C-alpha cells in the first residue's frame, strides 16, 4: 500500500532503532500495535507565541488506544498543546517551542520527519465543524485522494463507506452522498469531519473541543463515538467540560495557566484529586 510505504518512510529516514510501530499500519483496520503502552511522549514542552509563553514545562505520556483528555479552563493552553502533537502550529506565525514530542519514540519535530506524513498518522478534528463546501462523499474522499491511497474507485467507495460507518454517520447519509456537506446539521457535519479524518487511517485522532459548538444530543453522539474510536486508535480530546472529561476519558490531564497541574486516570482524578487546584476545578469552584 502506498500509505503503508509512506508510514514506513517516516521512520526509515531516522536512524532510530526503536522497533515500535511498523508491524501493522496498513489500510485494514484490525491492526495491532506493539506492546509498548505509550504512543506519544511529551517531555519538557514550553510553547510561545512571540514573546508570550503559554505552555510551561509540560511532560505527559499518552497511551495507545485510549482516550486521553486535556481539560482546563478556557485560555489555559489546551489548543496550543494539542496542536503541537500534529504540528498544526507550524502554520501559526510567531509560534515557537522547545522540549520534545515523540510519536512511537521518534521526535516529530526532528528534521527528517515530514510534517505531511505526520498529519496522515495524526489526524485532527476541530472545535467548529469545518467540512469543505463539496459533497459528503468528496469530503471523506479528500484525504485518500490527495495521498493516493487507493487504486480503484471501488476501493475509494469502500474507504468512504467504512469511514462514515466508523463515524456513525453512514445510515444518515448513505442515500445522499452527493449532497453538499453544508446541507448537514452541525452535529452531522462534525461527524463528517471525523469520518474525513478517519479516512486516511490515522493512528491518533486529536479532537479540540469537538462538541462545544453542538447541542446536547449531538454531543452525546460524539462522546459515544470517541469511546468507540479508542478501540482502534488513540484519541486525544481537549475539553473545558469536566463532565465530558469524566464520561469519556481514560487518562485525564488538568491544565491550568499553561502548566500541567495533575495527570491521572479517570475517575480517580475526579474523586481523589491530589492537587488543590484540581480539586477546586472539579468541584466547579475554579473557572
Amino acid at each position, binding site marked *: 500500500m502506498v500509505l503503508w510505504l509512506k508510514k514506513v518512510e517516516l521512520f526509515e529516514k531516522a536512524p532510530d532503532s526503536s522497533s515500535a510501530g511498523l508491524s501493522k499500519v496498513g489500510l485494514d483496520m484490525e491492526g495491532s500495535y506493539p506492546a509498548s503502552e505509550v504512543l506519544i511522549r511529551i517531555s519538557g514542552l514550553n510553547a510561545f507565541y512571540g514573546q508570550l509563553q503559554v505552555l510551561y514545562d509540560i511532560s505527559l505520556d499518552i497511551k495507545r488506544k485510549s482516550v486521553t483528555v486535556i481539560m482546563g479552563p478556557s485560555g489555559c493552553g489546551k489548543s496550543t498543546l494539542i496542536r503541537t502533537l*500534529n504540528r*498544526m502550529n507550524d*502554520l501559526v*506565525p510567531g509560534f515557537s517551542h522547545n522540549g520534545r514530542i515523540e510519536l512511537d519514540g521518534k521526535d516529530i519535530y526532528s528534521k527528517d520527519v515530514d510534517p*505531511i*506524513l*505526520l*498529519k*496522515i498518522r495524526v*489526524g*485532527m478534528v*476541530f472545535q*467548529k465543524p*469545518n*467540512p*469543505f*463546501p*463539496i*459533497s459528503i462523499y*468528496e469530503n471523506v*474522499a*479528500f*484525504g485518500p*485522494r*490527495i*495521498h493516493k491511497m487507493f487504486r480503484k474507485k471501488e476501493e475509494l467507495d469502500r474507504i468512504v463507506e467504512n469511514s462514515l460507518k466508523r463515524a456513525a454517520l453512514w445510515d444518515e447519509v448513505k442515500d445522499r452522498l452527493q449532497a*453538499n456537506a453544508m446541507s448537514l446539521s452541525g452535529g452531522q457535519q462534525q461527524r463528517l*469531519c471525523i469520518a*474525513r*479524518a478517519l479516512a*486516511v487511517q490515522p493512528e491518533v485522532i486529536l479532537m479540540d473541543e469537538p462538541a462545544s459548538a453542538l447541542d446536547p444530543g449531538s454531543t452525546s453522539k460524539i462522546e459515544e463515538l470517541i469511546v468507540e474510536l479508542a478501540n482502534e486508535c488513540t484519541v486525544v480530546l481537549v475539553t473545558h467540560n469536566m463532565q465530558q472529561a469524566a464520561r469519556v476519558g481514560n487518562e485525564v490531564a488538568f491544565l491550568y495557566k499553561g502548566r500541567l497541574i495533575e495527570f491521572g486516570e479517570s475517575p480517580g482524578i475526579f474523586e481523589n484529586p491530589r492537587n488543590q487546584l484540581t480539586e477546586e476545578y472539579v468541584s466547579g469552584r475554579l473557572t
Partner: protein
Amino acid sequence: MRHADRAYRYVTTVASGSALLFLLMIVIVLAVKSYPSIVVNGLKFFTGITWNPSLNGELIRVNGVPTLQGATYGAGVFLFGTLVSSAIAMLLGVPAGIGIALFLTQVAPQRVSRMVSFLVELLAGIPSVVYGFWGLVVLLPLLLQVIEPAMASLFFWVPGLNGQPYGAGLLGSGIILSLMIVPIVASISRDVMLQTPLELIEGGAALGLTKWEITRKIILPYAKTGVIGAVILGLGRALGEVMAVALVSGSALNALPNSLYSPINTIAAFMAESLDSAFTDPSGMYVSALFELGLLLLVITLAVNFIARLLIKQGFVSKAETVIKV
C-alpha cells in the same frame, strides 16, 4: 428609531433606483442619438472597415435622414482593435494579477506582502494618461527597437508575428492595458483569497495537504467567483480605456492590422479623438455614428458582464465550487 429606519430605506431605495434610472437614460440617449446612423449605415456599420465622413460631400438625404454624399461608416477597425487589444491585455494581465495575488497571500512573508500590496494599490491609482505617457516614451521605443524585431525574427514562420515592427500598435496597446488591469485583478483577487475561512485551510492542513495543495484545492475554489469578478472588472477597464490607448495605439484608420505590431484603434479612443471633427459635419451623421460606436461599446461591456454572471451562476464555477475534484 422607526423614523430613522424608514428614512434609511427610503434613501437607499432612491439611491439604487437613480442608478438604474441613470443607466436607462444613457441607453436612451445613445439609442436616440445613434438612430440616424443605424438607419443609414445598417449592418455595414459592423462589417465595414472604412470610416470616411466625407466632410466635403454634399448634404443629401438617405431614407429621409440627412447625411453627406459619399460618407461611409464602418466600425470594423475599431471593433477589432478593441476586442483584440483587450484579449491580449487579459492574456497577459490576468495570469500576472492572479499570480501576484497568490504570491501576496500564500508565499510572501507578511512584511513583504504588506509592502507589495501597497505598491499594487498605488499602481491601481495611477491615472491612465500617465500610463499612456510612459508607454509613449519607454514602452514603444523598446517595442520598436528590441522586442518586436526579436519576436519577428524568432517567429518568422508564424503569420501575424512576423510582420514589420511599428512600436505603436496592437502589442503596445495590449501591454499597456494589461499593466492597467494587473493591479485591479491582483488586489481584488488578493482580498477574496484572504477571505478563505481559516477553518477550511486548517482542515486541509490537518489532512496533510501541502501549501500548494491547500492553495489549489481550497483557496482557489473558494476565491474563484471573486477572481472572475475581478477579471470582469479588469476587462471592463480595458474595453473602455481611452487615454492610454490613444497614445500608444498608432491610431489606425481604414486598415485592419496585418500583424501583432501594426497600428490599431479602439472604439473608446477613436470616439474621444474624433468628436471635434465630428461636430463640423453639418448633417450630424458623423456625431450620430460616434454615438452608435458608444452604443456598441456599451453592448459589448454589458454582454461581457452578462456572460460572466452566467458563468458564475451555472457554468463551471458553481459546479466547481460544489465538487472540488481532487
